[in-house]
């Protein structure tokens, strides 16, 4: 069950890194971003139909999400059942926010995911003012000109960063890759770097749009 958790989590690490890289395209302008969005659908088109690769990709992600969430809730309920009488006094010696908030942080990220998909994939509603039409790039620009949308994203990215920081290191431990002191140090450093790069990389486009650095035209 924990191996399932680690492997499905690792898939997401690669996915968020690719997703973040794609988002940075907005800095190259709306057209480049639109071309990128279109390219995701035409990838491998002689072999697969239009959007085919994207759908295969989505199916893999959904399977990983179900596996990750299922194993999380299974392990959560087992941990709850393992101590039904709580301590009157309990002090943490080494637990940190990032390690103890994995479960509630995960739930927060899941809720954010629902909002994020509704906003940019399924409904594509526009909270900004101008009419957008079919350009994904323009939808992104007008959405992130609204301050509370940016705030939601920043909060979600803080949660994601902490989840990755502990999660990446924890996965190496669960897979048995952090055996020596050096390997452990490397794993912790890698976790920090991945968490930092991901949250900052994702946060740059919304912030740049909010502060008018990227205008869209």
């Amino acid at each position: 069950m924990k191996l399932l958790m680690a492997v499905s989590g690792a898939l997401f690490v690669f996915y968020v890194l690719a997703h973040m890289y794609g988002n940075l395209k907005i800095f190259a302008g709306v057209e480049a971003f639109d071309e990128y969005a279109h390219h995701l659908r035409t990838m491998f088109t002689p072999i697969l139909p239009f959007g085919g690769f994207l759908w295969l990709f989505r199916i893999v992600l959904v399977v990983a999400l179900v596996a990750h969430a299922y194993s999380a809730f299974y392990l959560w309920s087992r941990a709850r059942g393992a101590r039904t009488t709580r301590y009157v006094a309990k002090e943490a010696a080494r637990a940190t926010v990032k390690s103890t908030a994995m479960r509630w942080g995960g739930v927060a990220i899941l809720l954010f995911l629902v909002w994020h998909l509704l906003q940019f994939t399924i409904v594509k509603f526009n909270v900004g003012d101008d009419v957008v039409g079919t350009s994904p790039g323009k939808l992104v620009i007008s959405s992130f000109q609204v301050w509370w949308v940016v705030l939601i994203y920043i909060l979600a990215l803080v949660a994601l960063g902490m989840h990755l920081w502990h999660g990446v290191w924890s996965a190496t431990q669960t897979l048995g890759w952090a055996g020596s002191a050096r390997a452990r140090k490397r794993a912790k450093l890698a976790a920090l770097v991945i968490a930092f790069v991901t949250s900052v990389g994702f946060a740059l486009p919304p912030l740049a749009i909010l502060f008018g650095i990227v205008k869209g035209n």
Partner: protein
Amino acid sequence: MNLTLKIWRQASANARGEMVTYKVSDISPDMSFLEMLDVLNEQLNARGEEPIAFDSDCREGICGMCGLMISGKAHGPEVTTTCQLHMRSFSDGDEITVEPWRADAFPVIKDLVVDRGAFDRIIAAGGFISANTGAAPEAHSVPVPKPKADRAFMAAACIGCGACVAACPNASGMLFMGAKITHLGELPQGQPERDARVVSMVEQHDAEGFGGCTNIGECSAACPKEIPMDVINQLNRDLRHALTRHGD
């Protein structure tokens, strides 16, 4: 020293327990924590009250019998067992909370005494090692590299006190199990049954109702023998190898 103690009292396994407040006075800073409880019990005896039940055996920090949650920390504020914790680690006038290990796999028998039989069953599930029990073999016939011998010895320092489970937010027994797996896994004598051992022990661990590990690290911080988290890594690695590469 004068102290206020809040101690968990529970008449039997099925009785409802509660925290009861006691005051002790004229405690020497050189007393061990258990000697301080002995003094309190003498007072309770003199008053005709039921003394507080707690476990202890060697009182030298090597048997793993004593184990109390002292003001929210397993074995109290020092890196040692409860019996080797001295009252000089506290200050005059302190209020100290004393609770038994809390884990459903360690049911309370009475007051501060819990049944750690689950650990024994995990060890039993690990089974035997194939060793010649006839004439002692020539010591040099089975070479053991020094780093492996050191690591096995480090892991073998586990006394099975249960502090790792008590401190773990998930009440997981992974540090204990990891220590046992590493201890035998590093030595040539542990190799023939290495795969079967890790699978059976983990199955027993889960059946006893311990939680899963989320790599928080409270166990290692509470361990009186300072067993590091990498034994959990070893346990996971051995389990993965047993289930995938050599699996049946």
